[in-house]
């Protein structure tokens, strides 16, 4: 045990234990609470996915929600019952119209599709430097939003896709959260991940030391897109419907806020941010629903929760720019050696 607390694997084990403990607690909670925590775990997968690229490369990406959308729609189209597709999407190409893949195959296909798109779009994008690259990822988000919202024969356009198999419950989400954390940890401890982190600290010095910046960024971008794609899959198979509006600026903001507030330079920060903001958002949601005192209901206006979240994020940026985790990984509390005075 002592060796584990000192080991480099400690953060991985600790984070997995935290996630599983959270899921275990949720098991005992009422059904509504359980749903919220499931959604929180899905967000956690999305935040960890974003972290793999943003945290290690230092380049902010606005595009990951597009990868979530791609994963979501690919899985939705592959797993929806053929009868439902015949009603909602009569013009589907034949192989999609008849496809009724098992859930796990659909999920992996969704993640892979997102990863492939990231590989293709990332190829030009990763040549750009910091800020330009971020803006370009924003363009990726807009492009896929426009395409999914208008490609009516395949995605249903502005209409929701309904009747998706709902198979994501608490433990499916928790399982994928564990996988996401493991993938992100293995990536950041890998040679490619470490070189990328070096380039984040000092781009010029890393390049001068022979780090192939573009290649490592692209690799992280693809891994990140895969996890984002999976989180999109989980989200639509949790809700049972896929709507193009779900995957746009509000979700982008939520995921980025979670990462920034938690601390975008460590995996612990990503996990912590997702958990903390899920709890805060739940409290704010209660505020929007309102508190009844006697016969009057005090309710915050719609949009209040989002405004508070944005404010919280600004306060963190101003006063604790490295987020709650402060850029460090979770560590076993050390017993202070006694010092003589």
């Amino acid at each position: 045990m002592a060796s584990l607390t000192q080991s480099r694997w400690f953060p991985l084990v600790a984070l997995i234990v935290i996630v599983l403990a959270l899921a275990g607690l949720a098991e005992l909670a009422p059904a509504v609470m359980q749903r919220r925590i499931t959604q929180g775990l899905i967000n956690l997968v999305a935040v960890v996915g974003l972290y793999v690229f943003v945290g290690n490369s230092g380049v902010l990406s606005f595009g990951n929600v597009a990868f979530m959308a791609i994963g979501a729609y690919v899985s939705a189209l592959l797993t929806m019952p053929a009868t439902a597709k015949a009603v909602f999407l009569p013009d589907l190409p034949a192989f999609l119209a008849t496809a009724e893949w098992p859930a796990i195959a659909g999920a992996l296909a969704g993640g892979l599709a997102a990863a492939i798109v990231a590989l293709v779009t990332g190829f030009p994008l990763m040549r750009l430097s910091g800020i330009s690259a971020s803006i370009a990822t924003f363009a990726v988000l807009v492009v896929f939003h426009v395409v999914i919202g208008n490609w009516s024969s395949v995605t249903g356009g502005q209409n929701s896709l309904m009747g998706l198999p709902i198979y994501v419950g608490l433990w499916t989400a928790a399982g994928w959260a564990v996988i996401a954390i493991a993938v992100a940890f293995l990536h950041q401890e890998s040679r490619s991940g470490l070189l990328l982190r070096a380039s984040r600290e000092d781009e010029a010095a890393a390049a001068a030391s022979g780090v192939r910046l573009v290649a490592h960024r692209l690799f992280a971008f693809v891994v990140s897109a895969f996890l984002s794609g999976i989180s999109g899959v989980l989200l639509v198979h949790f809700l049972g419907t896929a709507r193009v509006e779900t995957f746009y600026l509000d979700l982008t903001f939520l995921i980025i806020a979670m990462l920034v507030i938690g601390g975008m330079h460590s995996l612990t920060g990503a996990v912590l941010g997702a958990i903390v903001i899920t709890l805060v958002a739940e409290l704010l949601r209660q505020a929007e629903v309102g508190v009844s005192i006697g016969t009057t209901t005090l309710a915050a206006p719609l949009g209040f929760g989002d405004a508070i979240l944005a404010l919280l994020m600004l306060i963190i940026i101003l006063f604790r720019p490295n987020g709650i985790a402060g850029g460090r990984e979770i560590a076993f509390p050390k017993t202070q050696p006694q010092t003589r005075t």
Partner: protein
Amino acid sequence: MIGRMLQVVVDAVSVGGLYALTALGIGLIFGVMRLINFAHAQLITIAGYAVLLLFTASPVLAVLGAIIAAALLALVVERTAFRPLRGADPAMLLIASFAVSFFIEKVMIMLVGSRPKGVDFLPALAGQVEVVGIRLQLLQLVTILVSLVLLVGTTWFLKSTRLGLEMRAAAENFRMAEVLGVRANRVIATAFALSGLLAAAVACLFVAQTGLVQPRMGLQLVIIAFVGTVIGGLGSLPGAAFGGFLVGVATILLQALLPPELRVFREAFLFLAVAVVLLVRPQGLIPARGLKERI
């Protein structure tokens, strides 16, 4: 046939002008602070709502109100959110501006609701005029004129006034400019006020064109203008204006030339073209001098 072509050209130039003004407003702030100002969208939106509030009283009042509202909001945002972050890492600034933008948008939705509202602003401009036998919308000509005047005016300000000179110096090398006696606070505040003015102009023209205000009106313009600043070359003001103009023209040309069933994907094609430009010239069409970090 010639008439239709001329119509497309006028459309393209007027929309291009609108995006050029938007991109210039974003470019000004990027120049002095290395900050991509997402909140520029909300400057446009608040100016739009100022027009909604005042247009029944008098059009002049509405325009003045729009300018004051946008410039004031720009200064408040600069003072409260961006000044404490001056000199922070650009990625952090980008996140901060995203948060500021989101915050203002949500507060506005809380205050005015999210439904679009109709504004019959400057109905006289909806009329048509005949130029060499071709009927053109007056509003488009006014848009072109206003864009031209503001672009020339901004250029004059930057080239010929002391404050403009200081601003260009700050854009080139902020620390060096400070060391040589440029007062940072004044220069940055001026840049923000100026970007507010440009946002107000865009808002007035846009509202007159669409006849609607809604909390997300600025965002549509700003997202496309962002792309303009990137392909023009981040940090270069002529680049921003030119890039903005180019994307505006491209949207109209795509609209005119694409087959109808592909028109809904207009933005997708536009951004695809942008990706190609960036592959060839990652620094943009008119790369900024002095942007490259010195080591």
